[in-house]
């Protein structure tokens, strides 16, 4: 449903960030993209969601060419990107943050329904609907960021480092929520530095290094691959 083919991206004229990246997410999959800082993970997600436009290459989502399409139009197709660092609207209430997530949904009753559904999924958000986003803890903010994305009725969810900076217990909760979302039928492209947890819930994985995909395969196989273990799982 998402296919990225031979995508090249640069910042300015000189700094090349992606050198011909290809990747696919199929219906019903969780695919994880692992790599070190600066390898190009976030750049790739931003390119898929339309915040960055590639120099060359092709991105197709559900039959639509989406490379060089403005990000708000890509989001309207149901390709929803939860950016790194959560990026909730700090001065808006939890409820308003969630409402913004449903900006592309045309019908008020559907927006209401999804709001109730997200509050069931994250009771902590339901309890804090009137609170400003900036007053939430880091874990709650991440739940809000994911909940806000779910408000858009995503056909594919892209998560950029959802576990960053969170306590181990909260990380576990976030990963279990991600598997729940996946089980409810939404395919997921997950970018993570926490390769261990990410590969455990993923179907397939890609390893990215300095702007190139250097390895791909079933998540189970990557988990036992000696090179991956040495580089990303801290096991030798």
């Amino acid at each position, binding site marked *: 449903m998402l296919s990225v083919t031979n995508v090249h991206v640069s910042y300015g004229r000189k700094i090349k960030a992606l050198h011909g990246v290809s990747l696919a997410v199929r219906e019903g999959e969780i695919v994880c993209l692992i790599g070190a800082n600066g390898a190009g993970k976030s750049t790739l997600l931003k390119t898929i*969601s339309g*915040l960055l436009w590639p120099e060359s290459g092709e991105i197709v989502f559900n039959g639509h060419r989406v490379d060089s399409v*403005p*990000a*708000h*139009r890509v*989001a*309207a197709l149901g390709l*929803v*990107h939860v*950016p790194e*660092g*959560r*990026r*909730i*609207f*700090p*001065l*808006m209430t939890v409820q*308003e943050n969630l*409402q*913004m*997530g449903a*900006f*592309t949904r045309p019908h008020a009753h559907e927006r209401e329904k999804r709001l109730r559904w997200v509050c069931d999924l994250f009771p902590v958000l339901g309890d804090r609907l009137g609170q400003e986003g*900036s007053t939430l803890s*880091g874990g709650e*903010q991440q739940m809000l960021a994911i909940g*806000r994305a779910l408000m*858009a009725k995503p056909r594919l969810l892209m998560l950029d480092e959802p576990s960053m*900076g969170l306590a181990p217990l909260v990380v576990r909760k976030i990963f279990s929520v991600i598997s729940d979302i996946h089980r409810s039928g939404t395919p997921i492209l997950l970018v993570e530095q926490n390769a261990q947890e990410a590969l455990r819930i993923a179907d397939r994985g890609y390893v990215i290094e300095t702007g190139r995909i250097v390895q791909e395969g079933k998540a189970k196989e990557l988990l036992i691959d000696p090179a991956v273990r040495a580089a990303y799982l801290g096991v030798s």
Partner: protein
Amino acid sequence: MFVSGNVIFEQVLNGLTLGGIYALIALGYTMVYGVLRMINFAHSELFMLGAVGGWGLLALWPGGATLGGICVIFFVAMVGSGLLALFLNRVAYAPLRGSPRLTPLLSAIGASLFLQNVVFLWRDSQLAFPPLFVSGHFHVGHLDVSFLQTFIILISIFLMVNLTLFIRKTRLGKAMRAVSQDAETAELMGIPVHRVVALTFFIGGALGGAAGVLNGLYYGSVKYNMGFAPGIKAFTSAVLGGIGSVPGAMLGGFLLGLLESLGAGFLPKPEWKDVFAFVVLIIVLLFRPAGLLGKNRAEKV
């Protein structure tokens, strides 16, 4: 100097009238700053054009405008200034997006000079803005209250209440706040940021145009260079209240208006009023650099 209750009341009323006008203009500065982090220095010309445009329309009612006529004048001045703000955004600012911050600033100053000179070529003198309706007073107890001042205060409050409801309650208004807090993320939510920015320019321009007509009514004249002083005062109001904050611009506008008129009434020389107002501004900024209602955008990462 003898100060009676009446004099204080009068100065407060003057201050609120002036403050309402400042606040309406300040909203245009603060809203555009909110979404683009840019000071639209041509904003004061939208105010001037609203006033001069209103003056031009008065010719349609040679015998003095009726109430319906006043509504038409307000409507046309607001829509006209709003559309002009859109045009300004399109030709002077949008092409420069992504360039260094100084560039759109210079473009704004250029646009400001251009607009002033266009009006100058059309009418280079002071233009009389006749009182549109009864310029009398009514009495509350033993206090004299001017109809015109009451009208100006009520109109400016009416516009601000509506703006607040729009920003707080409607989807588009919330989208505007979302864009001002994090434009990139708003875009990822499917919010068309460039259109929200355009809408912000339109609303800011429309409020400036309304302020222009009110100002014309209040002082009884308009001129091509009338935007400068109120523009600076309104910009100051926006900074005083906290630039980027909508309630801040309203508070700052009224506060500056009150400070000025109380300063003019009670200082030994009325010319010191601006000194007084700006000293207060400096003191406030020393203790609250983000302005009275400005928030330091602290974000958890």
